[in-house]
């Protein structure tokens, strides 16, 4: 059990906290031609990753690489979080191709085609909801407004990479650590408080999306951990 308070001999109390800069992350997966309505941070390692549509290999069991949540859909009872920003990284689960016999490869998995990322930016709305049965999100943005600060830039040659290959890869802005929209007023997630991140396509199926996608969302901020 964590030490939270110490009562001194003179009767005064000292509250012990350890706050550290810590990214909390969670993964979702969805196929092309699906109306995405998924919730991240709703599972822990060993449970199924929220998945929509038919993705290669089917729904997966979460590993350490998919989430560092230790409680489902809530902040652990001896932890708390001050969220200053949201960000993400993306990985395609299928290739993007066009034409037949032979097809032209546009983006081999895990590369996400730049137009596909733009389609996600157009249609997805991301909501951070804190509290049980609370409708008002603490943060909500169309996906385009969330900068991508985690991922790889690419440094390409100017010529075609290979026969029948026309490569294109996209990131949500320049790949720098500063490319995330910092909340001037942070969002506080108290201990044991229900929270989740809703990822939803309000127009329905994402038009023209041609790849299945894995997305790993990050809360960036300060986490209070127990002092053992």
């Amino acid at each position, binding site marked *: 059990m964590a030490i939270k308070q110490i009562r001194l001999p003179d009767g005064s109390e000292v509250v012990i906290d350890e706050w550290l800069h810590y990214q909390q992350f969670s993964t979702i997966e969805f196929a092309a031609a699906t109306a995405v309505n998924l919730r991240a941070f709703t599972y822990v390692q060993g449970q199924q990753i929220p998945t929509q549509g038919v993705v290669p290999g089917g729904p997966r069991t979460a590993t350490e690489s998919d989430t560092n949540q230790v409680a489902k859909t809530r902040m652990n009872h001896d932890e708390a979080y001050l969220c200053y920003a949201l960000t993400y990284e993306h990985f395609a689960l299928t290739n993007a191709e*066009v*034409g037949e016999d032979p097809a*032209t490869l*546009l983006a081999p998995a895990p590369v996400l085609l*730049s*137009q596909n*990322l*733009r*389609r996600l*930016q*157009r*249609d*997805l*709305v991301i909501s*951070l909801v804190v509290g049980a049965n609370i409708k*008002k*999100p*603490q*943060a*909500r*943005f*169309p996906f*385009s*407004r969330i*900068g991508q600060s985690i991922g790889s*830039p*690419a*440094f*390409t*040659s*100017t*010529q*075609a*990479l290979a026969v029948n*290959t*026309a*490569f*294109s*890869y*996209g*990131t*949500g*802005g*320049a*790949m*720098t650590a*500063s*490319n*995330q*929209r910092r*909340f*001037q*007023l942070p*969002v506080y997630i108290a201990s044991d408080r229900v929270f989740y991140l809703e990822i*939803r*396509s*309000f*127009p329905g199926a994402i038009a*023209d999306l*041609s790849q299945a996608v894995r997305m790993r969302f990050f809360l960036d901020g300060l986490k209070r951990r127990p002092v053992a």
Partner: protein
Amino acid sequence: MAQLWKIRLPNGKTLTPGDWTSAEDLYSTVEIGTGSFPVLTAFSYGRGASIPGSVAQRQSTLADTNLEGEGNRIPENEELIAYSLAIEVFMIGTENVQFPDAISPADAPDVSLLNMLRLQRDILVITRIAAVKEYTRQPLGVFAAGTGVTQYNSAAINAVSGDPYVVGNNGGTSVCDSRQMASPLYVAGGEGLAVDVKPGPGQVNNLNLEVGSRMRLRLFFEGYRRRPVA
């Protein structure tokens, strides 16, 4: 209404609780087609109403606007302090295949560089608050999106035609690329708010779009919003 407006303390003082957030921009959408149009007004409708300029008066969803109520004003239980107006552009549909530009467009929703320059050349953005004053009247390019996709290409092609393409964006694609106002715009609860998207020449000249296709402009007020405390 189960909503906290005021709290009276034992000493007689009153507190007005407010939930201020910087984590939910206020946004609205309009759509531009080819041909002349006088003006399209963003923030003139609430969620669920039809989008100005859209094909068949498309009904708005949360992907288009988060303004509630009848539009043209901020709800009475909200306030806005905006430090930035950012406008992003998507192509919905295709460019005109019969009369193509000299450079092929990318696939939707990317906007070709030629069309983006035409929009930036001809569109004015006019912000009206309280219906008595204008607070902006500048070209579209001033209101950089700060959103978009940074592309890394190597002989990339348009999937429709198989041609190489050139893509544009309303300013840089990173968060820091949107322009911050040195003096913020304040909109009180219940006060009028609208942003007119107006083509100076009466239309966006030479905008290359297929009939029934549109340029979708999504406008964001970024800053602080006061929301109701339930």
